[in-house]
C-alpha cells in the first residue's frame, strides 16, 4: 500500500479521493512514499522539493508548471531524474477527452485532420498562459504529433487568444480561449458562461464533446489521474515522458508569444 500525501485537495473532495484510490492510502503530510500536488502554496513548494530530493515521486498538475525554467528546477530537485516527476495535464484526464482519445487510438476516426477547441474561462484565478498551454498539449495529444507551425492572434485584449497550429500535411488545430474580463458586464449567455467544446475530425470519422467539460468531469479527472499515478508508482513505471510532453507544450506556448509579438507564423524546428 502506497502512502500518499495530497496537497491542494481538502474536505469532502479529499475524502472522496481517498475512498476511490486502490492500492494507496492518503495520509497527512509527512514521511510518505509519493505526493500529489494540485495547488502551489508555500507548503506545497517545500513538500515538492522535499519529496523529490528524497528520491520520492511527485504528481504535479501541469498548470502549476508555467515555464521551462520551472520544469528544469523540478528536475534539478530530482537530481536530473525526470522519471520521478509526473506532470499531468488535467485536460487529458477528462472522461470525454479520454473517450475521444481512445477512439482515435483505436483507429476509428482515422488520421486526425482538425482539432477545434473553444474555452470560456470564468475563474479569475486561472493563469491564461498555463491554461493555453494545457490546450496546446491537448491538441497535440489528440493529433498524435507535434505542430510544425504556430499562428496566434488576439482582439487586442490579453483576455482573448486564438491559436492556429499547423501539422504536417496541412492538418491543423484551432484553439480559442477567453479569460474573464477585468470588469465583466452583465451576461446574456444563451450557453453557460464557462462553455467549453472540443471537436475532432479524422479522415474516417469525427467526435465532438460540446459544453460538458465541468463537474462531474472535473472531479473524475483528479481521481483518474491519481489512480494512474498510483498504479505506475506501484509498477515502477517512470514519468519522464510527461515532463517531455509538457516541455513541448511550453515551447509551443513560447511560439504563441512570439507569433503574437511579431504578427507572423512561427515555424518550429523538427523535434
Amino acid at each position, binding site marked *: 500500500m502506497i502512502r500518499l500525501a495530497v496537497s491542494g485537495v481538502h474536505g469532502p473532495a479529499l475524502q472522496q479521493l481517498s475512498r476511490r484510490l486502490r492500492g494507496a492510502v492518503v495520509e497527512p503530510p509527512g514521511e510518505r512514499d509519493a505526493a500529489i500536488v494540485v495547488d502551489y502554496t508555500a507548503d506545497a513548494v517545500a513538500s515538492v522539493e522535499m519529496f523529490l530530493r528524497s528520491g520520492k515521486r511527485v504528481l504535479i498538475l501541469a498548470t502549476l508548471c508555467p515555464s521551462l525554467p520551472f520544469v528544469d528546477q523540478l528536475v534539478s530537485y530530482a537530481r536530473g531524474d525526470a522519471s520521478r516527476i509526473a506532470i499531468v495535464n488535467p485536460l487529458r484526464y477528462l472522461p470525454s477527452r479520454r473517450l475521444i482519445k481512445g477512439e482515435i487510438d483505436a483507429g476509428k476516426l482515422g*488520421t486526425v*485532420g482538425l482539432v*477545434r477547441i473553444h474555452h470560456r474561462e470564468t475563474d479569475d484565478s486561472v493563469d491564461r498562459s498555463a491554461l493555453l498551454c494545457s490546450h496546446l498539449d491537448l491538441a497535440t495529444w489528440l493529433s498524435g504529433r507535434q505542430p510544425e507551425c504556430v499562428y496566434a492572434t488576439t482582439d487586442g485584449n490579453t483576455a482573448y487568444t486564438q491559436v*492556429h497550429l499547423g501539422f504536417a500535411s496541412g492538418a491543423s488545430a484551432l484553439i480559442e480561449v477567453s479569460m474573464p474580463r477585468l470588469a465583466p458586464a452583465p451576461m446574456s449567455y444563451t450557453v453557460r458562461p464557462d462553455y467549453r467544446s472540443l471537436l475532432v475530425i479524422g479522415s*474516417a470519422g469525427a467526435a*465532438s464533446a460540446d459544453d460538458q467539460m465541468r463537474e462531474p468531469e472535473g472531479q473524475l479527472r483528479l481521481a483518474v489521474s491519481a489512480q494512474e499515478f498510483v498504479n505506475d508508482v506501484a509498477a515502477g513505471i517512470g514519468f519522464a515522458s510527461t515532463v517531455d510532453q509538457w516541455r513541448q507544450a511550453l515551447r509551443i506556448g513560447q511560439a504563441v508569444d512570439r507569433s503574437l509579438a511579431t504578427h507572423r507564423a512561427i515555424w518550429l524546428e523538427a523535434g
Partner: protein
Amino acid sequence: MQSRRPFRCAVLSAVKHDYVARGMASHPRFELAVVADDPDVPDWAHERNQQFADAWKIPYVRDVERALREFDVQVAIVSPEAERHCDLSVRAANAGVHVVQDKPLATKRSEAERLVAAVKKSGVRFLMWNRNFFPAVQQSYEHVMAGGIGKLYAIHADFYFAKDAGPPKGSRQPGDPPLDWYAHQIAAHADGSDGGLGREPMGELAIEGIYPLAYIQMLTGGAKVQRVFARSTAHFHQLYADNGVEDLATVTLEMEGGIVGSLAIGRIGAASHPSGGESKLHILGDRGALVVNEAAPTVGIYYKGQPPKEHRQRRVAIDNDFLLADNFAQAIDTGGETILGARASLAIFATVEAALESCRTGQAVDINDCWERSHG
C-alpha cells in the same frame, strides 16, 4: 390589393444547381420564362438544360443574347459550370437584366472584378445565392444587432458537409490514372454534390467558403477581413488529392475593429455525421456569447430499417429560398442593395484568395497586399 407583374426570369444554364432557379420560382414575384445557354456547350449540358425547361414547360433557347432580348426578361438566374458564372452574369448585366448567381462568384480575380464593374455600370441588382436567411443565422443576426451580446469581438464558423466525394484518399492503386475532376463533378449531379462543377478543380474554400464567410460578414455588420492565416489539406478524398485541392481548411481571420475570427470548412465524409454535417457559429461579445447550430430547428426521425444515408435530424422551417427571392425583389423595387451583393461577394472572394495564398506560403497574408499582387 394591387398585384404587381412578376419579374420574368431567364435561367442562364441550369447545368449545376437548379435549386437556385427553383428557389426564385418559389416567390410569386418571379416566374421562369426561358432557359438559355450558349450553343457550343457540351451535349450533356444541353440535355440538362432541356430537361429543366421541359419540367417547367418553358422554352430552351441555345442563344443567350436572343433569350435576353426576345423573352421580355428582367432577371437572369445563372448556374452554369463555375468558370462560366461571371461571363453569363456580365452578359446579363450588360443587357440591363438583374442577376441572381450561384456560387462561387468566380474562379479568377479578373472575372470577379469584371462582374462587379458590369453590375455597377448597368445599375442592375445582383444577388449571390447564400444561406444568410437560415432561421438560426437570422435569429443570431437579430440578437447581435440588438446588442444582445454587447460589442462583438470574436466569431468562429464551422461549416462541414458530411458527404463523400468518390473513393477515400489513399485508395488509388499504383498505375491507376488520377481521378478526373470534371467527369466526377458531372456524375455528382445525381446527388447534388456537384458544387465544384467545372473543368478547373476547386477546393472547399473556393466552392463553399462563401456560405460561412457570408455569415461572418453579416454578423459582424460588414467588417472587412484584413489579414488571414490558413492551412489546408486533401484529407479525405482521392479526388481532391489527385487534383491538388483541399477538402479541409482552417482560416484565422483578422477583421476591422479588432474582431478576431476563424473558419473551419470541409467535405468530411459521410461517416462523420448522421445528418449531413454540423455547422456552427460561436459569437463572442463583451456582454455575452452565442453558440449557434446552423441547422436548427431540427426534428429527429429514427425508425427500424432507416437507410444509413437518411438524415436523422431533419431541418425544418427553412425559408431561405423565399426570403432570398423576397430580398431580391425588394432590392429591385427600391434600388437598394441585396443581402449579398457583388461588392460584398468580391470581398469574400478576396478573403478566400488570400487564404489560399497563405496555405501556399505558410505565412499570414494581408488582403490588400494580396489584392495589389494580383494586379501587379
